[in-house]
Every structure is written in C-alpha cells, then in structure tokens.
C-alpha cells in the first residue's frame, strides 16, 4: 500500500505543469479561474493548443495518434488542467465519437473523421436524448429509413450540448421496430448543414445557452455515414457511455472549486470575522473538504484496479454519484458564501471583456448561476438514480 505517485508519475505531472505554464495564455486561464463562461473561440483555441502538443486525443490508442498515457496519467492531466484553469475539452468528438469510430468504424470513416476531430475541422455534438428518451435512452423514436444510398431521418433530439457551435452530430436513430427496443437502433453521423436540420436553443435556468433542441425533417444522410452495422447501434452507444470514465468524478473540478471557495471564505466576512472562522460555515466547508480527500483516494483506487486488469464497470457509477454530489455541494457553498450578492444576475459580467466594476465581490457574478447550472450534474450522463440502479444490479446483484 503506497499512496504516493511513482517518480515517473511525478515527472509526468511536472511535464504537464510546464506545458500549461508555457502554452496556456494568461487570458484563457484568468477567464476560467474567475468563473466566466468560455466562448466558442476559447474552446477552439484550447483544442488547438492541446493538438499541437499531441495531447488532444489523449484517450486514443497510440496507433491512432494518442500519447499512450496510463489511466493514472490521464487522471493527473485532467486534474492539473482543472487546477490551472483551462477550458474543458469539448468531449463529443474527441472523447466520445472517436473511440466508437476507432473500435467500430470502417477504414474510410477512421481516415476521414479522426484527423478532422483533432485539427478542429469538425465540431461534433451528441444526438442521444430525445423528449421521450432521457434516462430510458433506448426509447429513441427518431427514425432513419433507408432509401437507396441514403437514410432519411425524421425526429427530434434534445439537450444537445453546444450544438449551436457544431457542424456534425452523431445520432442514435431507429432503423427497425422489430424485437426489443434496443435491437432496432443504429448509429448515424449527420451533417448539420443538411437541409431539414434545425437547431433551436434551450435556455437553462441559469440563463445560459448551453443546450439545444435539434429537429430533423426528411434529412438525407449518405448511407456511408452509418457506423458499424445497422441495428447494432445500442452496442456502440453503450460502449461510448462507458469508454472514458477516468474523470467521471470530476475531482479536478472539485479541487479547483474548493480553492476558489477557500479564497472567498477568507475574504467574505460574517459577524465581524472571515467566513472561514464562522463555525457553521467552517463545518460545511470541512465536511466537503474531507469528502473530497476521501473521493480522491476512492477515484485512485478504482483507477489502480483498472490498471491492474480490472474492468471499470459499475465502480464508475459510484464515482459519478459521489463526484457530482460533491461538486454540487461545493457550488452550493460558493453561492452561500456570497451572501446577498448571490442575487444580482448581470449576464454580461459572466463573459470576457465586461468593462464595468463588479457588483459585490469579484467572484459573486457567476456563483448562483454555477450552482443552478450544476444541478445538471446529477441528471446527465445517466441520472444518479440510474447509477444506483446500475450499482444495485452490477455490484450488489439485487
């Protein structure tokens, strides 16, 4: 039993830190550290920086251009990025679609799409959820009917994150109504510029335009855009959902948020003393901090088990539940820490280049919005209740 990182892992951490210090513009990290919302250009810039280093597709196998990192190294990388304050990697192309293409795509698809993911030619979004298929994902109703060399797609996707920036969408579509509902699903790549595709924004409760509805009306998709076999899409969909889970607990996000929270608690005052010395607030903060320390070790235990040949199965459900609960708690504390200044909502202050003085503490502008936005954490990616069903079935055998 040894909780220390190996000298190689420590060297890797130093390498990552040196890279971040050298290559991430201060403008970008300041934006993220101050809790502002990155714009499309910021995310594109970050992808380009990572790609130039060969680290964008860091989950990809070496033969497809991945750096060959271990699970622990990926964990270190993700945490260092969060701590430094980088925008997040937009996962849909690089971490979701790419592994599916690598495992199930044909040679032509791999040759065409993979380089375009890395160099930013394509911005992918995810066409999974539908109004009637949330946690019950296999209930998708969007249809794709084969007509000669095309599929004709009709239906609606929803919760399409950053779909407003995307030029491509990968979709679960129904190609058969025979057999079980899982049996008739196919995995199709759709050009968003095709006639009949319409994107409408969904404004979330925090006032942000992050997610969208995507409508398909008689959209003609070349048959060559089918991934794998027709009606086998559910297998690929599940693979995509379980493929990359080293960061599902979001430990790095929590560490970064806790740091911000500590700074806030040291400067905000209540009853004539810093909030950090207020017994009730200090207790809430300490509970979250202890939970995070435990979480780090739990996460590393799971990764070590994977490295030792174990399968990251239902354990990632445990990490997802506790990790998201913790992030929600921390953003709740951030909101509380701002006191009355959690109330003002000046949208422009959440973006770079806001010229006016902040209302209240500098960090206050986004505190309540982040709290409300983070309610999504326990809902998306399989709600925490679905995760408990998985644990119950896969680990507990109930």
């Amino acid at each position, binding site marked *: *039993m*040894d*909780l*220390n*990182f*190996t000298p190689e*892992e420590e060297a890797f951490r130093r390498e990552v830190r040196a890279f971040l210090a050298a290559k991430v513009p201060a403008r970008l990290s300041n934006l993220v550290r101050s809790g502002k919302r990155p714009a499309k250009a910021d995310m594109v810039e970050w992808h380009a920086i990572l790609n130039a280093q060969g680290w964008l597709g860091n989950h990809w196998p070496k033969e497809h251009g991945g750096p060959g990192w271990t699970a*622990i190294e990926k964990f270190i990388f993700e945490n260092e990025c969060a701590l430094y304050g980088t925008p997040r990697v937009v996962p849909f192309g690089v971490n979701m679609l790419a592994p599916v293409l690598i495992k199930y795509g044909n040679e032509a698809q791999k040759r065409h799409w993979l380089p375009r993911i890395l160099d930013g030619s394509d911005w992918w979004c995810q066409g999974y959820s539908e109004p009637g298929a949330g946690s019950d994902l296999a209930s998708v109703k969007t249809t794709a009917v084969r007509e000669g060399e095309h599929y004709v797609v009709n239906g609606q996707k929803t919760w399409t994150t950053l779909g407003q920036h995307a030029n491509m969408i990968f979709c679960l579509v129904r190609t058969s109504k025979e057999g079980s509902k899982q049996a008739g699903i196919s995995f199709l790549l759709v050009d968003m510029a095709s006639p009949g595709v319409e994107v409408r924004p969904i404004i979330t409760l925090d006032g942000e335009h992050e997610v969208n509805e995507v409508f398909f009306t008689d959209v003609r998709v070349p048959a060559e855009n089918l991934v794998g076999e027709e009606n086998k899409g559910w297998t690929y969909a599940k693979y995509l959902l379980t493929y990359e889970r080293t960061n599902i607990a979001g430990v790095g996000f929590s560490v970064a948020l806790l740091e911000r929270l500590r700074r806030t608690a040291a400067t905000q005052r209540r009853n004539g003393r810093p909030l*950090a*010395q207020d017994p009730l607030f*200090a*207790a809430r903060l*300490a*509970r979250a901090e*202890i*939970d995070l*320390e*435990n*979480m*780090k*070790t*739990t996460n*590393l*235990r799971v990764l*070590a*088990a994977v490295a*030792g040949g174990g399968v990251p199965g239902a354990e990632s459900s*445990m990490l997802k*539940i*506790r990790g998201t609960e913790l992030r929600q708690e921390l953003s709740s504390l951030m909101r509380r820490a701002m006191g009355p200044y959690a109330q003002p909502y000046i949208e422009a202050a959440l973006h770079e280049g806001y010229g006016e003085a902040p209302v209240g503490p500098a960090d206050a502008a986004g505190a309540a919005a982040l709290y409300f936005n983070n309610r999504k954490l326990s809902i998306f990616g399989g709600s925490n*209740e679905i*995760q*408990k*069903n998985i*644990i*119950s079935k896969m*680990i*507990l*055998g*109930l």
Partner: protein
Amino acid sequence: MNFEHTEERRMLAETLDRFVAEQYGFATRDHIAQSTRGFSTELWQRFAELGALGALFGEAEGGFGGDGFDIAVVFESLGRGLVVEPFLGALVVGSAIARAGDTAHKPLLDAVIDGRTVAALAHDEPGSHYELANVATTARRSGEGWRLDGAKAVVLQGEQAGLYLVSARTAGEQADEAGLSLFLVPRDTAGLALRGYPRVDGGRAAELTFDNVVLGAEALLGSEGEGFALLEHAVGRGLLALCAESLGAMDAARQATLEYLRTRKQFGVPIGSFQALQHRMAQLLLEIEQARSAVINAAAALDDADRTTRERALSAAKFTIGRVGTLVAEESIQMHGGIGMTWELPLAHYAKRLVMIDHQLGDEDHHLARYIALGAQAA
C-alpha cells in the same frame, strides 16, 4: 501508487480472518461479550500467539509491524468478528511506552506485546467529553515519587487490566496541553478503586478513582508536564485502530444486509427487488467505500512527520467513520425490518458496535471541530 497490501499483511489478515471465523462465531462472541469477565483470556492468548499483538508494534519495540497499514489490517479483522478482547488498550498503552523509550519500562512493553499484561488507557474523565487536554486528575510530587488524585471514566476492560496508562495534571489549568503527564499504574496499587459494568455493545468497562495513590518515581512515562504529545501520538494510533475496526464491522453489516435483501421475501418477491431498498443499499455501498478511503488516508498519514497532516487525516477518518458507521448501523437495521431489532440477529450487535465506536476517542462532531481547528492553526 499501489493499493495492494504486502504479502505479509495479506497473510496476517487471512490468518486472523480465518481464526475469527472459526473460533469467534456469533454464539461464542455473545457468550464472551456478556461474561462477567468481559473477554476471554484463552482467546486473548491465542490471538497473541497468532501475532495479532506483535503486528501492532515495530521491530525495535519487540513486534514485527507497527505501520499504519499493519494496525489497520489487524483491526479490520477484529471488527469483522466484533472481537471484545483488549486490543485497543494494548495498542495505545504499548505505543506510549514504546514512544517514551525508557529502557526501564521495556519489560512492561514486552508483557503488553506478548499479551501477558492486559493494559488499559485511563484518560477520559467524567467531565472531559473527548477533549484530549481536559484533565482534572492531579499528580503531585511526593518524596521521590508521586501522589495521584482524581477519577477516570469508561476505562475499557478496566477490571481485568493489570496496567493503566493514566493521564494527570502536574501543572497548568484543567484544559492546558502543557502540564499534562502520563503515569503507568499497576492494578494492585493502594488507593485505586474500581467500579466495573457491562458495555451496551459487549465487553466491559470501569470507572476508576484515585484517592491519594502513591507512586514511585519510575511511574512517570516520558517527561513531566510534556505528556500531551505522547498521549496524542498514542491516541492517534487508537483512532486509526477504531476506524479500521469500524470498517471491518461495516463490511460485515453490509454483507449481512445484502444477503437479507436477496433472501427475505415479501409480496412474493425478494425485498431486494424493490427500488426503494436497492437505492438505500447502493448509497450505503458508496458511503462505505468513502470510509475505506478515509481509513487508507489515515493509515498512510499515521507516521507523517508533519503534525497537521497526520492529525488532520486521523480526524478526517474518525469523522467519516463516525458518520458512515452510524448510517450503516441505522440503515442495516431498517432494511432488516423487525428482525433487525432482535438480540438473536448478529447484525444488531454490529450495529451497536458501529454506533459505539463513535463514542470512543471523540465522535463525529468532535473530530470535525478538531479538523477545522488544526487547519486554522496551520494557516
């Protein structure tokens, strides 16, 4: 990064687990735990022969372990079996003697490590409520030696102990860290009175009073007035031990509850098919894994040179264990329904032990406050 135990530790754990499973079944345990003696001298000796005591101490001290993970492995096994024998006293008292490093006390340490002498920590007082420095018992110089007056509360297996480690104030105010001293007091000392009683979770404890107890100069352990650091070090090992014991008991309670959910039928189906219970059970699993991580963190930090790092990890673990242990106890009983309320069900005794561990060496609230205070001191 490596979360595997060494071969030696795995073997020790297997040996202890097997011994507990074969020799310390529930009926035996219940008999021992309710006995007038409070534990089994025979099993205590056999545990010692298996190395369960030696593993708690380093080679220089006369053992063959002494690392945080050695302590954790042993106490996890003990927790799985709800063992009531006086391991905690041996660990804490032995660690204090070893740490003080006085060769004159070496024979006492040897006797503790081989199990000949049952040792008990006599530190808590009727009014101290977990505060480590809150000691009203006094020791005054008397000739070459000392005179001890005061009272000690809930001394584990106090009636059978042959040796007590007693904290007493030689200077300072009642809650001062400075001015605390530690004394080794043999069982048959004149002026030492005992009132023994059973514990709610099995085994026994005692209230001790010291009325004009005269001790020789050799009774002082460590330096006069500087006993706090020694006490904190020894109690730290006790904290880790209790956390690991709790983890072992949690695993047993989890297994029993899971088994019950699979087999107990209501409405014609196993109750484990009900989502309300599945989610409670899944939640319990998550919490137990977080508790396991807390124990690992504490074991890894046990001998950290930095006091803040070490003591914060210990308090974080005891806080987590207190919270999760209580949750596991309450949820396990609830999921068992009526049968969970009965004495005949082993689970009920695990539940009692899990909750009572929160009453030893500081509870959830105490350690959360301590964790915060240690952080504030360091800032």
